[in-house]
């Protein structure tokens, strides 16, 4: 045994072979990222050959060469005519549907000459020349007086339909993943924006199939986020039932989704998207800032982001656009000043400028404002108060800016202690909350999940295909819970224990464990099953610090002005039933605590809401011979 493995063997070690050979692809309009499972069983975003985790969706042709990713983006400076960017959003669209903005910074989109109503890119390439001499059968070319044919490549025009561009790009992503894994990829999950139409999804599936990718599922971006945030690794202290706001600031679009997470099941409460706000707007602000600084310092006029830039200025703008990428990353990572330096920006003059966080935040405040406004609008349409949102999750490189988080949190009127990746400290250092990689990692998790389904569960696998009706589910429309009545006289008439929140998918089962108080003489306890609606009560109180009137309500929050106090309220809507029992296992609390001498018993409440809507609640004492009290409500 030892002799034949002395020098190692070519077989991969067992550890590696146990990893699912799946890849998660976040396919954005401007950037893409890929994630695979690494040796420690975690989904990790991986870098491509150029060392980029954020792979620019760009394709550039220069002579006989083709560049993909960030080298292609760099070509935008001097070879913009042959560089293709922003192709994803054109996928599956007809030529007539595309808004033709005459962009000067990339390859033009034209009508495909052969296929009707099909957009395509026209690029100039050099075709490899035909073989210099026809091989003659005799072996040696016949002597002739004619000059030897030149073997230079011939300039040619190449028409690339959008789908072909996508295929080329996806193929390069797949290649990167396979190089990392060292084996063939079984399948992939690819993100799509929620606004994708069926035609676009079809086109993407076709393009992926052409690239040799088995697509397990096309996953909407909010779902990819949910895949990460519902995983155990996210944050164990958060409740499993929560409302989550996803803020996705791409480079060219802003999309917001409000999700209701109910024990791992996610549903969209509301979503919105706009293409006016995005990272590009921040870029423009920053470029203008640096261009002005340049003009001031060097007395060289430089106009950027104008309608009709001169050629020299357009090139300078492209240079700056590449350079500020680095500046933005520095700003998000460290609180100090960030530099931007470009060699030979214009007329051979170099430029080095700095900007600090405060300056930066002031500069891009309009963009922050528009994000915050969109958030407020979304919450208004969903009829959800900002205080009912438990968590904000950020997606996209722009959201790495901590200024954005602060601004949204403050302007949106959220709880001060709302959970964000920043408050959890998972953004920096490629943590689990890293907004740039979260989508790809979610896809990888989902891909591994689907890959783990056995062949017997073919119908489950089918459910992940497009157009499955199984996503249509029944949910509870109101929150169900139990009240243990007492004479405290608060609004619920006792201790309120929520069991099934509104919007929980049916059938549902929940359990809760708690202590109930008993009196010494009688061990009787009782509970009532209620359907309630939750709300927020805004209470104006004087700025003078005083004891809040309602001590029972622990969830009260103060606005920054210190005069409005928001309470979470519970309004009892309909009484569904009650039950009582004599506790058999009551114990007297001993020890020095303030509850000493009181009688309690620990109970477990289980509620099952069937698919029909019928409810079955049982409260059982934990332990041998514990009593059980049940309430049943038939389906409506």
């Amino acid at each position: 045994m030892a002799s034949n493995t002395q020098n190692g063997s070519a077989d991969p070690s067992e550890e590696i072979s146990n990893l699912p050979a799946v890849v998660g692809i976040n396919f954005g309009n401007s950037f893409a990222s890929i994630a695979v499972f690494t040796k420690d069983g975690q989904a990790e975003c991986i870098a491509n050959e150029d060392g980029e985790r954020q792979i620019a969706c760009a394709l550039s042709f220069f002579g006989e060469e083709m560049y993909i990713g960030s080298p292609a983006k760099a070509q935008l400076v001097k070879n913009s005519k042959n560089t293709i960017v922003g192709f994803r959003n054109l996928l599956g669209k007809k030529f007539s549907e595309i808004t033709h903005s005459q962009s000067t910074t990339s390859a033009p989109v034209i009508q495909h000459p052969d296929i009707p109503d099909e957009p395509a890119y026209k690029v100039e390439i050099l075709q490899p020349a035909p073989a210099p001499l026809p091989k003659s059968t005799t072996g040696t070319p016949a002597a002739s007086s004619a000059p030897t044919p030149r073997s230079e490549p011939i300039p040619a025009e190449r028409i690339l339909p959008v789908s072909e561009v996508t295929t080329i790009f996806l193929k390069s992503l797949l290649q990167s993943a396979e190089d990392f894994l060292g084996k063939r990829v079984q399948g992939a999950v690819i993100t799509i924006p929620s606004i994708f139409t069926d035609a676009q999804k079809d086109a993407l599936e076709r393009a992926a199939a052409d690239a040799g990718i088995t697509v397990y599922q096309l996953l909407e971006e909010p779902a990819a986020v949910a895949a990460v945030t519902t995983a155990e690794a996210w944050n164990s202290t958060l409740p499993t039932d929560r409302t989550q706001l996803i803020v996705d600031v791409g480079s060219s679009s802003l999309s917001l989704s409000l999700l209701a997470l109910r024990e791992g099941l996610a549903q969209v409460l509301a979503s919105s998207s706009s293409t006016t706000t995005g990272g590009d707007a921040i870029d423009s602000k920053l470029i203008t800032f640096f261009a002005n600084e340049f003009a001031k310092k060097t007395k060289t006029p430089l106009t950027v982001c104008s309608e009709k830039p001169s050629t020299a200025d357009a090139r300078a703008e492209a240079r700056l656009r590449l350079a500020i990428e680095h500046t933005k990353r520095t700003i998000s990572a460290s609180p100090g000043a960030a530099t931007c330096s470009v060699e030979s920006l214009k007329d051979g003059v170099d430029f080095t400028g700095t900007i600090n966080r405060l300056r930066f935040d002031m500069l891009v405040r309009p963009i922050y404002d528009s994000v915050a406004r969109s958030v407020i609008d979304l919450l208004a349409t969903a009829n959800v108060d900002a205080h009912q949102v438990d968590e904000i999750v950020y997606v996209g490189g722009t959201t790495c800016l901590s200024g954005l988080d602060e601004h949204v949190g403050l302007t949106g009127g959220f709880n001060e202690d709302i959970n964000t990746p920043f408050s959890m400290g998972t953004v920096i250092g490629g943590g689990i909350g890293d907004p740039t990689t979260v989508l790809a990692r979610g896809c990888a998790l989902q891909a591994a999940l689907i890959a783990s389904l056995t062949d017997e569960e073919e119908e489950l696998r089918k459910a992940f295909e497009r157009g499955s009706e199984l996503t249509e589910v029944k949910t509870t429309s109101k929150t169900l819970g139990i009240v243990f009545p007492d004479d405290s006289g608060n609004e619920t008439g006792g201790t309120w224990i929520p069991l099934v929140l509104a919007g929980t998918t049916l059938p549902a089962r929940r359990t809760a464990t708690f202590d109930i108080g008993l009196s010494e003489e009688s061990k009787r306890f009782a509970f009532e099953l209620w359907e309630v609606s939750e709300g927020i009560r805004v209470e104006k109180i004087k700025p003078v610090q005083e004891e809040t009137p309602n001590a029972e309500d622990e969830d009260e929050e103060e606005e920054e002005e210190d005069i409005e106090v928001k309470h979470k309220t519970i309004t009892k809507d309909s009484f569904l039933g009650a039950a009582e029992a004599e506790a058999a296992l009551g114990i007297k609390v001993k020890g020095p605590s303030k509850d000493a001498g009181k009688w309690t018993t620990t109970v477990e409440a289980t509620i099952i809401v069937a698919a029909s809507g019928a409810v079955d609640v049982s409260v059982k004492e934990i332990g041998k011979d514990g009593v059980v009290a049940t309430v049943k409500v038939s389906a409506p």
Partner: protein
Amino acid sequence: MASIQTNVLPKSYTIPSLTQASIAGPSTRRLLPVGPAYISHLRLTIHHDHDFDAHDAHLEKQRQKLEELQNSAANGDDDLGVGDEPESEELLALDPKEWKKHDYYAVLGLSHLRYKANAEQIKIAHRKKVLKHHPDKKVSSTAPQSTSSLLTGVNLNTNDDAFFKCIAKAHEVLTHPEKRSQYDSVDHELMDSQEDDPIPSTFSKTKKSLSDEEFFKTFTHIFERESRFSKKQPVPMLGDIDASKEHVEGFYDFWYNFDSWRSFEWLDKEINEGSDNRDDKRYTEKKNKSERARRKKEDIARLRQLVDLTLSLDPRIKRIKQQEKKTREAKKAAKSAPASGTVTPQKSKAQEEEEKKKKEEEEKAAKADAKKAKAAAANAAKKARRAARVAEEGDVA
């Protein structure tokens, strides 16, 4: 304890009458098809018809399957029945300096096999233990505790490789054939069980006779135990009550001529190697040698005694004798019967007397046999002693 605590139910509380139990109907929503929870939901709806019990059963089955898979993966290669023995606190706290007193089979987790363990099993057991107790592993696993040990001022790490040393020692002894046979000769378990062996006095004093069952119960395992020392294998076993005459005779024949490889080097007093005093060394050596011989003699005598005792209590011997007598009587009867059929009762009396006599004679003969055997054993012992002395003298010379 649960974090929620409800208040005491007021005494006056009565359950409110149910006016109208109307529950708001479910609404329809669209789920995002993502995550393990969605798969559970699908299973629940597709396979289990919304029934939580069925779903629970399914999950339990899955879990069991997984466990089995993991178990089979853990025991992927056959460990030849080495298994995994629990390690007691005492075992782990063994002092490697006291290595002579250790139970090596227990150290390697082979106490269920002991002398029956073959080389392959010892190898496997040793590897298992090394993997578990290697000091390199211990350092990493106890690393977080180092702070607490600093606080208490006790360095817990000093004893880290003690058990590993014990394992190494056990492996060294058990893989060396000569050392192993020495160790097996004085195996703790064996010594303990030998102490419980019946001795003739217990039976002679109480005059209590054993029932057949008791006899086989006490003696079968004794001979099984002793058989390990035989140079000749296989060893005939005691057998059962219906064993044939040949078997019984063969058995006693074998055990009276038992050739044992048992030796007592293991119990030698340690020779002080560091000492320069040659006389001192020789003296210890000599002592050890005589001690070994004495022990060997004792052991032979012990076994002899045991066989004697067995023979004297064996119910089958009585049976065989009776059978022999019967056949003889039958022969006699066959001879005398045609002569006179009427005198049979008297004859039978005479026969009885004869039988008695014969029995006595036979018993005497048996006793004489035993005596002879004893004498022979003594002779053998003497011879051995003499040979030893000669050898010793040779050594000295």
